[in-house]
């Protein structure tokens, strides 16, 4: 199966070609577009499976890793390589991205069926898939960065897909700019890394920047504040991750990104792209973890990892608490996404690659499931997104309800049977064992409580009770975004979505349940697979005190959250849309605070944006007066010189030329006198010549 390593590039290349073909194709060719995109991704999925099986069965003998690099461009004296790496991390991500992506493509065939820009949508989707897969397989920070930017671009394009909605356009810009801030950090880190190690290849047979030699050198060098260079670079790169996966304080773009079509939210802003940040940290984990003191359970502790842990933990609790008070179905999910990403970061920080990645994979499945489910709900409710206008959908769309419930339980971490439980539990477990402090653990537990609570609230509001969509709206709704009042949408009952949408949902649901069992403490296949350590099936591992206690604790937390949510929202349904939320009646101040997301946007508005505006004004001023004056000066000087040149040109150079040309023309005219177009003149000349010839011959003979 080594051929797969050579041909790994095919996996991103296929969607890229698909995107290109769709882009240049004659509009509209919906069937072609969908076929190309899905087919390319399906092929990619098969190849990814090959890659996956290629990486299997290497436990014990270290981690399986194959790289393939070749020189790409030369600058300075040396060649910049690009290439790709195949290791368990890549393989599992490949499988996840291609599979989920394929399902979401299929789903969006149904979801976007009525959109005019169907082809554009699929073109962007395919391009996004290409970029994401590029990110995944990259063995080189440069290639990684390029793909990373492609991903950012497509995310921008797709969030602003309905650019006629001003909110969508604004959201797109916001997302783009916010992530740029992070990417700036990433770029800086990249450049610094190149300056330090002279290579950007991750793994290059000992010469890569993630391999012992380079790491050692980076560790020895120290920079400001005695911080090791590796730490600094790691933090910079982590900044990029923060931007991409919406960690505090750069999380603000992610909820607004929900303006995009729901499949986009599912694919990009739940499953894959936001996970790219986590994946980045996991990829450069050696850089992060180098030089750390090995704490308990063999998890290193370094400055960068500590930062990552804290950021993750804060994000988790922060976003989860906001999600409690949201009313837009997609925003709730968005904030839960943010908090889950926080969990992943925390997991990476406290538990290493395996923990974080495990949650990433499981989360990808059930969050995609949830988003697609919400998409199906929105589709069924005629583009209605406000949970208060829904309700009682259980009887209208049973399939959606079933799969949505599964997703919700998985997210909430319902014990034993759902993947979310295992992954989150592992995170909490390793957080509990974290030597530095216990606060992240506590934050995580609270976050879990909130998670269970708001998911219950959402499901209760959406699926239970009676349908409130048909009644007139008396109050203006609170959520600023996400309302498309289609005039005909209020006097229909919701309907179940077509099979093309529900079937992917079921598949995802199946995975949302099953995927948990590959990483139970009893059988930590996933960790073993990723880290290449030996592992064995040992049921007793479940029952050893630390693990069991934690499991029980988290189970208790989850049940508390579920129960709380149910008795607050499930038992007594709200009657009307306008009715105040229960929490609002209880704690109006906190609710307001939460509903407005801790006024983060407003704070930014007051500080960053204002500063930015001032800076812009300053730049404008400088441009207009200082640089502009300089430019004007140069301009006048140039004009003067030009005038001088013209004088010389006309009165010295041209005169000479003119006389020369004149002489030439005269000569030509004189010669052309001979060429009157009269054949007979020529004939005469010929006759004279004949006579001359005869004379010459005769005299020559005489002489």
């Amino acid at each position: 199966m080594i051929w797969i390593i050579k041909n790994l590039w095919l996996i991103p290349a296929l969607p890229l070609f698909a995107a290109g073909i769709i882009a240049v194709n004659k509009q509209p060719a919906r069937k072609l577009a969908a076929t190309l995109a899905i087919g390319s991704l399906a092929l990619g999925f098969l190849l990814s499976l090959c890659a996956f099986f290629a990486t299997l069965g290497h436990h014990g003998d270290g981690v399986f890793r194959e790289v393939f690099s070749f020189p790409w461009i030369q600058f300075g004296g040396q060649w910049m390589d690009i290439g790709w790496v195949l290791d368990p991390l890549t393989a599992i991500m490949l499988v996840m991205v291609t599979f989920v992506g394929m399902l979401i493509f299929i789903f969006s065939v149904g979801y976007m069926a009525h959109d005019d820009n169907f082809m554009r949508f699929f073109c962007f989707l395919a391009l996004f898939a290409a970029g994401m897969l590029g990110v995944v397989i990259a063995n080189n920070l440069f290639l990684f960065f390029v793909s990373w930017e492609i991903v950012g671009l497509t995310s921008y394009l797709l969030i602003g897909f309905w650019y006629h909605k001003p909110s969508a356009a604004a959201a797109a810009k916001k997302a783009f700019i916010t992530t740029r801030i992070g990417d700036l950090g990433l770029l800086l880190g990249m450049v610094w890394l190149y300056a330090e190690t002279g290579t950007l290849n991750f793994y290059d047979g000992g010469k890569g920047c993630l391999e012992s030699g380079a790491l050692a050198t980076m560790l020895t060098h120290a920079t400001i504040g005695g911080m090791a260079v590796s730490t600094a670079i790691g933090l910079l790169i982590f900044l990029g991750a923060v931007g991409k996966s919406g960690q505090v304080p750069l999380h603000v773009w992610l909820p607004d990104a929900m303006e995009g079509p729901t499949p986009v939210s599912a694919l990009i802003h739940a499953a894959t792209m936001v996970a790219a940040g986590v994946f980045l940290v996991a990829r450069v984990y050696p850089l992060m973890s180098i030089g750390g003191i090995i704490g308990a359970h063999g998890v290193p502790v370094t400055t960068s990892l500590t930062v990552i842990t804290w950021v993750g933990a804060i994000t988790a609790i922060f976003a989860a608490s906001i999600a409690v008070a949201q009313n837009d179905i997609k925003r709730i999910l968005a904030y839960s996404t943010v908090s889950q990403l926080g969990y992943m970061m925390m997991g990476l920080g406290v538990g290493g690659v395996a923990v974080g990645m495990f949650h990433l994979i499981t989360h990808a499945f059930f969050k995609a499931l949830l988003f697609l489910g919400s998409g199906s709900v929105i589709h069924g409710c005629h583009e209605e997104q406000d949970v208060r206008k829904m309700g009682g959908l259980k009887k209208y769309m049973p399939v959606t309800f079933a799969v949505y419930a599964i997703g919700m339980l998985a997210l909430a971490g319902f014990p034993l049977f759902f993947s979310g439980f295992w992954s989150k539990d592992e995170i909490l477990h390793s957080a509990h064992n974290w030597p530095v402090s216990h606060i992240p653990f506590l934050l995580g537990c609270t976050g879990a409580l909130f998670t269970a609570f708001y998911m219950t609230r959402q499901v209760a509001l959406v699926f239970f009770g009676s349908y409130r969509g048909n009644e007139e709206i008396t109050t203006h709704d609170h959520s600023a975004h996400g309302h498309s009042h289609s005039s005909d949408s209020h006097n229909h009952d919701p309907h179940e979505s077509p099979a093309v949408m529900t079937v992917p949902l079921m598949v995802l649901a199946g995975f949302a349940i099953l995927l948990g069992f590959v990483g139970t403490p009893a059988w930590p296949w996933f960790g073993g697979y990723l880290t290449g350590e030996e592992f064995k099936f040992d049921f007793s591992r479940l029952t050893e005190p630390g693990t069991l206690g934690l499991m029980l604790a988290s189970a208790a937390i989850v049940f508390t959250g579920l129960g709380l949510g149910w008795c607050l929202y499930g038992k007594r349904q709200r009657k009307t849309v306008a009715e105040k939320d229960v929490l609002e009646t209880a704690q109006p101040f906190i609710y307001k605070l939460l509903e407005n997301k801790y006024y983060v946007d407003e704070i930014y508005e007051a500080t960053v944006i204002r500063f930015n505006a001032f800076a812009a004004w300053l730049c404008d001023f400088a441009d207009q007066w200082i640089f502009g004056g300089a430019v004007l000066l140069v301009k006048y000087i140039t004009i003067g010189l030009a005038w001088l040149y013209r004088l010389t040109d006309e009165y010295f150079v041209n005169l000479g030329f003119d006389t020369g040309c004149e002489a030439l023309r005269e000569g030509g005219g004189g010669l052309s006198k001979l060429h009157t177009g009269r054949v007979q003149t020529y004939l005469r000349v010929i006759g004279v010549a004949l006579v001359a010839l005869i004379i010459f011959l005769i005299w020559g003979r005489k002489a």
Partner: protein
Amino acid sequence: MSPFFIITGIVTLLGAAFAMSLRNLVHCALAMAVAFSGIAALYLQLDAQFVGFAEILVYVGAIAILIVFAILLTRSGEAPEKSVLTSGWMAGIAVSAMVFTMLGWAVLNSSAIPKETPPAPVATVKNVGDALMTKFVLPLEIIGLVLTAAMIGAVIIALKEESKNENPGRKS
């Protein structure tokens, strides 16, 4: 130097002179035909039967007719009112006179002229055919090619877009 020879020579030269000097183009063409017949007669007297007949066939039978057709097609059958001579005709006459004097002088006192006349050669059609088919077969083929090309070219040149009223290629 039989009298016939002198007569035919004079006829030829007169024909040529008229052909070049008459005002009316058709008369010129007819005079040219006369001149060609005279040349053919000269050929016969030089024991070149075949060439003589070919001369008549080609020049009188074909080219004269062709020229006549051309004259009628260019509507120049009548004598023009204005002068028929080019601006510098004096110079032309002078040059041609010089040419003739030069050639005549060269002919009359050139030392390369054989004094005695050899016996009449045998130029039967069979000999000519043998020569054409053996020694000169390549030039013959090339001439055929050239004639074909000329015919096609003439047709193409003279072919008006839609009408096929004439194409001189026929007679070449």
